[in-house]
């Protein structure tokens, strides 16, 4: 049976580099996609992806499992995202705003090939940041509504509402 994340993180805190490697391999893909899709610029996404792991490494001795490791990891990711958005001049209120411009000219996105999937990806990008984040947290890291609320520092109602709005908008695209 595989060791739980929390145990691995504690082991890493005690100097077991192998534990971190296992942990990293488990979460690298979802966290990377979360960052790449939450942000529209790959270089910024990679920068923040690295930064999340740096913070994990630096917090190794202070880590105390109070929740699932995944929730903790995405809380760090969320905090970095919020700071990134604030630096870009986006206020918290605008993260929930409806009118988010889509950078549809992204060649990587167009290269997705399949039209329907490309449309879905575009629709995800068009979501307001807070809804997009809630959706990605749900899809990529498998967080529940309560965990999304915990990771994003909001209440369950708000998290649920963001997820519901996101789903409704994406449903329209999927049904096309």
């Amino acid at each position, binding site marked *: 049976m595989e060791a739980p994340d929390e145990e691995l993180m504690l082991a890493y805190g005690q100097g077991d580099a192998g534990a971190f490697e296992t942990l990293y391999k488990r979460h690298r893909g979802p966290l990377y996609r979360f960052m790449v899709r939450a942000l529209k610029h790959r270089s910024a996404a990679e920068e923040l992806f690295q930064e999340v792991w*740096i913070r994990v490494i630096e917090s190794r001795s202070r880590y105390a499992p109070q929740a699932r490791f995944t929730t903790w990891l995405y809380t760090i990711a969320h905090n970095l995202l919020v700071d990134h958005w604030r630096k870009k001049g986006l206020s918290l209120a605008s993260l929930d705003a409806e009118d988010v411009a889509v950078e549809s000219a992204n060649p990587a996105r167009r290269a997705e090939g399949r039209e329907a999937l490309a449309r879905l990806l575009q629709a995800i990008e068009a979501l307001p940041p807070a809804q997009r984040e809630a959706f990605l947290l749900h899809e990529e890291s498998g967080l529940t509504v309560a965990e999304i609320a915990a990771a994003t520092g909001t209440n369950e109602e708000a998290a649920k509402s963001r997820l519901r709005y996101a789903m409704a908008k994406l449903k329209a695209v999927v049904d096309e």
Partner: protein
Amino acid sequence: MSDEQKISQRYRELSREEPPPRLDDAILAASRRAVQTRPAPLVVPSGRLRWYFPLAAAAVIVLAVAVTIHVERQRSDLEVAEAPASPPPPAREAQDNLYVPDPKPAPAPAPARPPASDAGELGAKRDAERLADLQKSQQAPAAPPAAAPPPAASAPAPAQDAVSGMRESRRADEAAPQARMEARSAMRQQATIGAASAFAAASPEQWLQGIDDLKRQGRHDEAERELAEFRKRYPDYRIPEAILEKFEKR
């Protein structure tokens, strides 16, 4: 199949992007470095090496005492050598009892200054010579401070280091991510040492209150720096949206 499941299924059909290997390597290397740099005892005193620590400590103490005595002796020699120059006559008697190796005869006491009316060119010249001597004698002890500029110049070194560290990191940013990680963690260490937060010892709530106060006073740069420090210290702390919004409004 519910709408949610349908969306999830379509989402899973999207490309499963993964981090590039260079990122993996950089992060894993950083994680290994972090646990390797844990401070270890210099020598593990065990078995036959148990005598090592007491002996080393005794050697250090003996050396320290010897150096102190040596320095003290040198200082008293210097004071004695300088003593003849001091003019107060009552002290002169006491000094005469001391053995002072004097390579050249003590300068004869300056003849009584001629009256002001006689103070012509010669007097002015003598004054100039004395002034020059005085300057020389002042320069002599002042020599160490003059030689001191290296430490003085090295005072702003942390700042220079930080700047060069930042430059390096910028260059490193264009290079491999591993180098970037190294530069960033070095920068962070420097920043941690150099810019210890005034609120670091406070609770997270007090720290946030401090940041809020800074914002209220219009010290936005300081507040942003404090917030960045706060995030480093408490990367998973959920700052309530209401507080973040308050920060934004100011």
